[in-house]
């Protein structure tokens, strides 16, 4: 099986370890991974901030970069939700306003092929035990786009529960937003920090060594708060935990 990795711009520039982990994980599970270099950003920052037209070229770029791949896998619920929930809408609006011929078709054609990592593992590959080993206490924050946008449900926690050595502890108020929200973090810094501080305190309160998530942008926000407060809890992307094995443990 062959799949294209949609690494996303945040992971590409700031969290390459997540992308590397996805490659290792998928290859270990027998998937041939491609990285189409023409990809960049899904356009979510533009779209969500009210610059819909600026997101159109990025929609086109993303759709064209992944043309022909039956599976496009991304370690970001947020970017997957952008494609699935908003691309068709952006495409239709662009065509209605006389721009972007074919954009709507490109969007519709891409949507069913895009999978968030845990969806791909559970739904396509049909695995919950990915053979990982991670002997630590972990708590999981389901980011809003994964939780409500994609409806990932129990998939991430089922995957984590099957990791050998891993002790999964419940995060109180897990379903509540962490307060990142893209540009919200800088447009409404006080509310954003208050939300993040509460979330970080919940994570610390579980006693977990690791706060795990499936979206590095939320984790960047929470990690920034945890480090500023000198907390011992560290953040890790789910993919890195799933990629970790006894032979090649996460360093």
């Amino acid at each position, binding site marked *: 099986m062959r799949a294209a990795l949609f690494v996303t711009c945040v992971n*590409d520039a700031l969290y390459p370890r997540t992308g590397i982990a996805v490659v290792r994980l998928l290859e270990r599970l027998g998937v041939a991974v491609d990285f189409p270099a023409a990809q960049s950003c899904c356009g979510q920052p533009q779209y969500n901030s009210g*610059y819909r037209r600026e997101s159109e070229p990025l929609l086109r770029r993303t759709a064209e970069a992944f043309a022909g791949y039956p599976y496009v896998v991304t370690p970001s619920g947020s970017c997957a939700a952008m494609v699935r929930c908003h691309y068709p809408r952006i495409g239709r609006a662009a065509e209605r306003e006389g721009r972007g011929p074919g954009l709507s078709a490109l969007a519709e054609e891409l949507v069913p092929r895009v999978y968030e990592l845990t969806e791909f593992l559970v739904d396509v590959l049909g695995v919950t035990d990915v053979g990982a080993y991670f002997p630590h206490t972990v708590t999981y924050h389901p980011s*809003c786009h994964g939780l409500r946008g994609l409806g990932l449900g129990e998939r991430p926690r089922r995957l984590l529960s099957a990791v050998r050595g891993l002790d999964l502890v419940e995060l109180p108020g897990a379903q509540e937003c962490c307060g990142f929200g*893209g540009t919200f973090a800088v447009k409404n810094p006080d509310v954003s920090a208050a939300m993040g501080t509460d979330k970080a305190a919940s994570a610390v309160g579980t006693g977990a060594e690791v706060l795990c998530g499936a979206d590095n942008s939320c984790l960047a*926000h929470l990690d920034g708060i945890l480090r500023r407060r000198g907390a011992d809890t560290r953040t890790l992307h789910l993919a890195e935990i799933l990629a970790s094995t006894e032979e090649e443990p996460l360093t």
Partner: protein
Amino acid sequence: MSGTFMGMPGMPGMPGMPERSDRPDAPELPATPALPDFPAFPDAARQAVGDPVLRANLRRATHTIRDKRARAVAELADWDRLRAAGKAIKDHTLRHLDRYLVQLEEAVTAAGGTVHWAADADEANRIVTGLVLATGHREVVKVKSMATQEIGLNEALEAAGIAAYETDLAELIVQLGHDRPSHILVPAIHRNRAEIREIFAAEMGRRGRPAPEGLGDDPRELAEAARLHLREKFLRAKVAVSGANFMVAETGTMVVFESEGNGRMCLTLPETLISVVGIEKVVPTFRDLEVFLQTLPRSSTAERMNPYTTMWTGLGPSRGADDDGPSAFHLVLLDNGRTDTLADEVGRQALRCIRCSACLNVCPVYERAGGHAYGSVYPGPIGAVLSPQLRGTGSAIDASLPYASTLCGACYEVCPVAIDIPEVLVHLRERVAQGGPVTREGIRVRIRPARGHTAERAAMRAARLLLDRPGALRAGERLLARARRLRPRRLPGPGRAWTDSRELPQLPAQSFRDWWARERGDRA
């Protein structure tokens, strides 16, 4: 329902009635904020975020209601279908609003009522003030109503020498405290009982029957003080002003859902009843109430059914009805930006709102910022989409409201009429950031972007240009990697908003793109 209620639905010691605590420097808020000067949401929210008592009150209140709501909703196996039905009824009505409003007017008139049409707040206030003055009375009792708050009716009446008395307990607390409501359902959510005791002791005597000597802050005592104070109003008032939760087009019936029974007193005792209702409140048939009688109470108070549902059609005794009901009934149909909102294909769904406030109670932003920060009688997620549509995006507060959300989607999930609030927020952000076509007073106009977005627009465009060129993107990432040893703790400019409370992410030595090219480049 407990024996003691304080304007809050069935939750003793809860919303609006938090534990005693001291807030020595709680700010005095103006009765009616001058909106053009109202600060933008981030500035207004800062104050609330920095008030630990307010935050604790809000947190306890919203979490209790949200948990109860979830349980109440889970009891109904057909919730999703009820939600879809509510959405469909509202959408259908809005699509044929002209027809249903005319039908409503005919039905109300046939039942002996008089229908008035008000294009905006000023006109509605003028109509109501004129109607009250014509009765010769100078006092009105009021049923809790969002529409009359929206238009600032109390202030308009006071200016005309008419005293308007709120009879909903929480609204009474807000009114006596010269305060503003901060929640749709629980307007005094931000007040604790020590504060309420002080307000009652200091203010009740100035507006009627004083609070009893030695009033304590036990909820039961406070409720009794309010009951005595209000009873005097109910028995004396000849004119009542209300809103309505629904208006039934086929029968001309007005419907009010409430918890305390004071609404029913206002609707049955006075001689003249004046109802100010937004035009979006109409439903076609009596049968349609079947859906909302189930979804509204569960969504708002987490009750299977609200304690009082009052329905009235036209006149009372003078039309041969039993003993009670008004002998004069006026319905003021309020537009105030609603038909303009209806003209917007994406934004019009906000008019489906049945004011249940479930979205407030699940919103993590509302929970931290409190209701006052929204600069409107409609706070929370629904306020963030409703206010900038009803009022336009011209003021600082209205231009900032579409950004007062992380788009987490919790509001959409709980909305009993499935308003996709995040979708409308993004749509309104586009209007603020880039301008575009809107309808104002029935005329299609093109508005310019709101002020202060020039730099952001340039940054978004620059980001897109970079992101649309993978070669440039890769070069940029390399530049970033080289800067990794700088590790600033504070960023200048807009970045400061991040580093004020968070560390920056540690920059990697190489991008994923570079790693791939080096390790697996042969397969790219």
